[in-house]
């Protein structure tokens, strides 16, 4: 289903598949203009820093935002069969994964050109991506449920994403805050900041992530995912009623 959705998505626009990569790159371009050209911030290594953080963040924010509205978008289907409601957000997240692979491919190519070598530490990208994926899918299910219950959650989630973008260290470096205790606190309290930092450490500094921390984040969101699947199975008909009548 996700693959079909992708094909449909690609055929809708003239530029087709190019959009997948173009959109996140435009984001990076805007940031570059603001922070490097206008504000004249640190230039050496800042663009790769920005790219890794922003592209990983877009994966999270776009998937979760789209998935949150997916059950409502699929109302035609909801009214016709008793489908598991988890199917809709999951298809969106899966679609996002395929997209992200293309985006990451481009990002790796850029990093190589910039002179960041491929090292054995890049192997840590695998657990990092898996944990990020688990986090995305758990948040996507929560978001989709909330939006079904009350549409008002939809703009709230978009706002929340903006908020997250500012507090997760995308255009500022968590590690440059100075106070080590503050750094610890931010990384512990905000799993997204931890993951984004992890991607940067691996790709740019050849430093492996804190595996125990990674495991805890993965297990936590894994548990949340499992609970959400059970809950959504339980309240499947209630969600259908909400979608069809609201």
């Amino acid at each position: 289903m996700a693959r079909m959705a992708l094909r449909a998505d690609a055929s809708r626009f003239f530029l087709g598949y190019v959009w997948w990569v173009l959109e996140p790159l435009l984001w990076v371009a805007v940031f570059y203009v603001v922070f490097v050209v206008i504000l004249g911030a640190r230039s050496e290594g800042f663009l790769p820093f920005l790219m890794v953080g922003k592209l990983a963040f877009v994966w999270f924010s776009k998937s979760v935002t789209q998935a949150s509205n997916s059950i409502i978008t699929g109302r035609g289907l909801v009214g016709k069969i008793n489908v598991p409601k988890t199917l809709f957000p999951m298809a969106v997240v899966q679609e996002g994964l395929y997209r992200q692979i293309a985006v990451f491919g481009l990002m790796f190519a850029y990093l190589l050109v910039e002179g960041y070598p491929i090292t054995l530490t890049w192997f840590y990208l695998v657990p990092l991506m898996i944990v990020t994926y688990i986090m995305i899918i758990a948040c996507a299910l929560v978001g989709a449920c909330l939006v079904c219950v009350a549409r008002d959650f939809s703009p709230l989630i978009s706002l929340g994403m903006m908020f997250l973008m500012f507090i997760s260290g995308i255009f500022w470096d968590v590690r440059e805050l100075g106070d080590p205790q503050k750094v610890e606190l931010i990384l512990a309290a905000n799993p997204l900041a931890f993951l984004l930092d992890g991607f940067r450490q691996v790709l740019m500094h050849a430093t492996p992530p804190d595996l125990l921390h990674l495991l805890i984040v993965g297990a936590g969101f894994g548990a949340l995912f499992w609970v959400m699947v059970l809950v959504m199975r339980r309240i499947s008909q209630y969600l259908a009623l909400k979608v069809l009548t609201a």
Partner: protein
Amino acid sequence: MSEEAGKVMLELDSVWLNYHTGKQTFDHGTHHVLNDVSLKLYEGETLGLIGRNGVGKTTTLRLMAGILAPTRGQVKVRPGKTASLLTLGLGFKQDLSGRDNALLAAMLQGSTRRQAESFLDEIAEFSELGESFHLPVKTYSSGMRARLAFTTALMTHVDILLIDEILSVGDAHFRGKALGAMQNRITGEQTVVFVSHLADQVKSLCDRVMWLDHGKVVAVGAAAEVVDAYSEKMTGERVIKNRDVPE
């Protein structure tokens, strides 16, 4: 007809369905769609559902298909039996071809990918869509859409078939063909619940008919009797209304 003879396939046991709209309408925002509806559906019979728009016909089908759960009461389906709702256009994805849509629809209704693929030739042939079968659904006319939807629905195999006004579409040629195909299935072993506004169609296809009004059962019984009573009421109301108009 076969009322007590057959085995019960599905039972609605004093079913109520209410929902809150959030906005203050009736009863502080509570809508009553179905009020205390009870019904037994027997194996192999064809049951018609009639009534005006908005009296809860589609909701009744959705309850039978398990899409919605009743607020009060119970919907019991005989263990191991499946009920599936066939309406027009199973949430078509506009940008995908008719073929992909048919494939998705069949898979969502419980076929494996291989089974679904094996239906495709049949679907292409029966729907007479020709080359358009491989074009995106957004390029289809509404008639072509109806053909695709009906044919896809026809190919699925379920124990209890719930049909929501599916036979009143397409051009005359296709409608005849669709009706014939449907009749074949209905006269067979298939258990069917059938919603339609066409009195003649209901009379000729159904064994029994349930008449709903304002979420309540007005009458259940032999098709001809209930349909006639319903038609009489409808024309009667029209006469009264016409009389009320001044001048």
